[in-house]
């Protein structure tokens, strides 16, 4: 894999994470626990869709085969998707959605922070824009985790279950592979393994305030970054891509 290919892969990961998590959040639209949350979840989803466009358009440019963000989002099959497993997990209840969001937001925040100093100016620029948005995402998911962890007995129980259930999908976020290493080498992206400690610090502080118990390190589910997903992703794509697949020559 040369640097350009690695960069393409890297950008797909950034874009696909935003796309798939945005998709999941948009499934809440009209079904949230309160109107304010319909608004807030849609806001986060919108930010993520916007980031998807930026990352995938850049990926298409880097690839140089004439694919834009829409082509990349709508015309790849599951094995070509590069999002981490965490973001494709089903919404579950509001507790699962919020814990998934906290786990992701905190990592996303730290990653984007690293990317703002990327040697690739295009990436630094997108990261700076996204970082502003994700700062709010993280603030919000932290608040909800605390509120629900320290809310009622039921909410506490649901939050602890969600925390435990999703934990095994967090390891993948901090495991560098050859793509990540190539990006570190090229001064393009941060070493994700160095994000683990600050992330854990954030998680510990949040869990404590939420009166929740952070799970112990354990088995890690991995594969998303290499295109080996859970069985959920295929169904996401069947919906997401239906129109583009069914009407291949149309513009919308």
């Amino acid at each position: 894999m040369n640097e350009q290919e690695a960069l393409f892969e890297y950008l797909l990961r950034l874009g696909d994470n935003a796309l798939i998590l945005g998709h999941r959040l948009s499934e809440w639209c009209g079904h949230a626990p309160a109107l304010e949350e319909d608004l807030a979840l849609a806001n986060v989803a919108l930010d993520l869709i916007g980031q998807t466009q930026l990352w995938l358009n850049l990926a298409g440019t880097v690839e140089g085969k004439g694919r834009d963000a829409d082509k990349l989002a709508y015309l790849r099959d599951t094995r070509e998707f590069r999002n981490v497993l965490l973001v494709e997990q089903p919404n579950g209840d509001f507790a699962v959605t919020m814990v998934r969001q906290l786990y992701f937001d905190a990592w996303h925040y730290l990653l984007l922070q690293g990317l703002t100093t990327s040697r690739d100016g295009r990436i630094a620029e997108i990261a700076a824009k996204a970082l502003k948005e994700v700062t709010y995402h993280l603030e919000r998911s932290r608040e909800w985790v605390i509120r629900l962890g320290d809310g009622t007995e039921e909410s506490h129980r649901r939050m602890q279950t969600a925390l435990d259930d999703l934990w095994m999908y967090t390891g993948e976020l901090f495991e560098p592979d050859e793509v990540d290493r190539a990006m570190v080498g090229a001064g393009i992206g941060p070493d994700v393994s160095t994000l683990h400690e600050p992330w854990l610090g954030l998680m510990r502080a949040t869990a404590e305030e939420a009166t929740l118990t952070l799970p112990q390190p354990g088995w890690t589910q991995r594969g998303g970054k290499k295109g080996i997903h859970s069985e959920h992703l295929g169904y996401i794509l069947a919906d997401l891509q239906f129109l583009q697949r069914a009407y291949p020559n149309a513009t919308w």
Partner: protein
Amino acid sequence: MSPEERAFQDRIDADIKIEPKEWMPEAYRKTLIRQISQHAHSEIIGMQPEGNWITRAPTLERKAILLAKVQDEAGHGLYLYCAAETLGVSRDELMEQLNSGKAKYSSIFNYPTLTWADIGAIGWLVDGAAIMNQVPLQRCSYGPYSRAMIRICKEESFHQRQGYDIMMKLARGTPEQKQMAQDALNRWWWPSLMMFGPSDANSVHSAQSMKWKIKINSNDELRQKFVDQTVPQAEYLGLTVPDPDLKWNAERGHYDFGEIDWEEFYQVIGGNGPCNRQRLRTRVKAYEEGRWVRDAAEAYAAKKAARTQAKAA
């Protein structure tokens, strides 16, 4: 009329806004609550037919626009519930009325969105009809409602343009897309005309509401205005309005149009539309499944307040 009522009517006649803490006739308050909450409920239920296509929108941009639109509807619902709350009813009470099936919402949302073109048609026709209803209400007599309408109308006209833009893309697209657009127009045209309510002859409450300036134009006036505005837009798209009786009446300076199927209208209002049950059940399910979250948020807020107080003491 009592002196209070007289003074109240005088203010209205002088185009002075009524504000929450002022005296108002009980019937005015009740009518307004009904009208505003119905409008709020319509925004909330209206999220469903459009929400149905968010995960399947055909491009990232269309997805973002649609999501933002449905989000705006949640926002409109919020403004309107707040406006209703100034009249002494809580959002929870109103939600309970909606969930129990007691409260009404706009019947148009009981039709299914079957293709992507329906998203265009809803923006163009349904939001178009809504704006036609709402623009005059910016001048309505009740301050909070009037101000909510001003905010809402601005966003709605944006939505209508986006809907028309979807239709345009389809109408100028492949033959299948054009057919999709025509089909959507066929299905949404008559329900859109029904959005203005029964014809004036059969419209109850209207006279009093108009005197109170919480209804500004008659149903038939607005419907005519909508037809006059929309028909040329359809022509521009190259689509055919599904009404054989539709034709320009030079004498009246308006389009004549065919008879509305009021039987369908009353059936759908009465609960027998294609999606009434689905819409309500979805809403109730979201509400019930969200209860633990709302309870927890409340419990947390109470704890936090207690802690702050304990610290202060």
